[in-house]
Structures are given as structure tokens and as C-alpha cells.
């Protein structure tokens, strides 16, 4: 898939993986990679982007006597997911035209 397209989708996919419960780096990669290929090094900038835009917040919790960083989706993040639903209709229209 086109890199730019993929980047946009990955942001939403990571948000979607946090929709039901808070998650951490390794598990986010596992969840998202079921749908789209994502590497460890690409996830980090995506998480930073989401954090900068206030779509996620972070907190650290002890796990196996070490600290694990969890990501939590914010109201803004949930709103972003809803916005992407309307993007879907537009994308569909575009592809209906392309594949005509």
C-alpha cells in the first residue's frame, strides 16, 4: 500500500486498538498487525503523534517488577475515530470512481 495512505490508516488503527481498553507498545503492534503491517520502529512516531494531538494520554504501571507504559484514548481520540467513519464514505466514493 502507498506509504502516505498507510500512515494515515495506522494512526486510526492504533486509536481503534485502544478503543476498548488501555494498551502498551508490544500489544498494540500485535493487535494492529493483524489488520495492517506495522513495525516497532514505525509505532513509536505514531504514538508520539497521537500524544501530541491529545488523542491519547500515557501512564506507567508496574508489571513483573518493571515499568510498563500504557496508552489511554481520550475523548478527542474517540472523536477522531468517528471522523474517520465519514472519511470512509469519501474513500469509497473515490474507489468506486477509480475502479469504474
Amino acid at each position, binding site marked *: 500500500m502507498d506509504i502516505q495512505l498507510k500512515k494515515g490508516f495506522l494512526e486510526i488503527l492504533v486509536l481503534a486498538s485502544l478503543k476498548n481498553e488501555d494498551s*502498551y*507498545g*508490544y*500489544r498494540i*503492534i500485535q493487535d494492529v498487525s493483524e489488520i495492517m503491517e506495522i*513495525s*516497532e*520502529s*514505525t509505532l*513509536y*512516531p505514531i504514538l*508520539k*503523534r497521537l500524544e*501530541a*494531538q491529545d488523542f491519547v494520554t500515557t501512564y506507567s504501571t508496574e508489571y*513483573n517488577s*518493571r*515499568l*510498563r*507504559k500504557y496508552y489511554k484514548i481520550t475523548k478527542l481520540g474517540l472523536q477522531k475515530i468517528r471522523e474517520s467513519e465519514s472519511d470512509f464514505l469519501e474513500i469509497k466514493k473515490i474507489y468506486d470512481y477509480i475502479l469504474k
Partner: protein
Amino acid sequence: MNKYEFLYKLNKNLDSFKSSDRDEITHYYDELIQDAVDNGENEDAFIDRLGSVETIIRTIKKDDTFVTNVKEKKDFELRKVFSATSKLVGYAIFVFVIIVIGSIAFSFVTSGASLLVVGTTRMIIGIKNSVSSMTLIMYAGNIFLGIGLLLLGASGFWWLIKQSKDKLEKLLEWIQKTLDKRGE
């Protein structure tokens, strides 16, 4: 390469980053490797899969401008909120001053008018009853004091109207603009 070698190399190559970012990135990879190992993956194989430290750093740097831009935009919005707040405080003080000056002007006008009326009436009655000139001078003083207060109060009102007309128009305009922005 084992975990310690990898993290050491990563940390060393992050020397152009802020120390907080450096710690955060190192911690991110440390956590990933530990989670992978806990999940039954082979440490060396997982680290191989992460790719070279150089590529990792290049990926982060490519995205740096985006994060900085978002932060700058946020600062700008914060400044806008501050300027709106200070404007609001300014208007609150202005309204307070208007009320104070307005009531002072009002009391000047009323007391001036009553002094004028009382002085004039007493003067007329006094002249009819041919009272002493000293008393008449006192009544005349009453009248002049009344006129003075009246003029002072009236000029206060005049100033107030002149000032607030301009400010009120600005205030209304500003409220309108703010509402328009909300609606966008």
C-alpha cells in the same frame, strides 16, 4: 546483539536528542524487548527484526517536525485564550468604572439641580420680602453652586456616553466575532 548491547548503541546514537526524549525512546525499546521475551520470543531474533539503530533514529527524526508543529499550534491557541481572557477582564473593569462615574455624575446632576431650584425659589421669595443683601448673596451662592454641580455632572455623562459608545460597539463586535468563530 543482545538487549544491553542494542540499548547501549541506541542510547549512544540518540545524543542529538533532548535527554528526556532519549530516555523515553530507550525505555520504549527496553519495554518492547522485555514484553517480546515474556511472550516467548527469542531476544536476539526480535532485536534483529527491529532493524538497525540508524534506521530507527531516522524514522523518529522524520516525524519530529510534525510533533513540533502540533506543539506550536497548541501554544498559539493557548495565547489566543489568554488574550481573550485579558480582554474580558479589561471590559469588566471598564463596566465597573462606567458604573462608578455614572453614579457620581448622577448624584452631581441631582444635587446641582435641587440646589439651583431651591436657590432660585428662595431668591425670588427673598426679593419679594426684601430680605438683607447678605442673605441674597448666600442664595446667589446656592444658585451658582447648583449650576456648577449640574455642569460637572452633565459633563461626566457626556464623557461617559462618548466613551462607552465607542467601547460598546467594539464589545458587541468582539462578541459577534467570538460567536462566529465558535460556529465554524
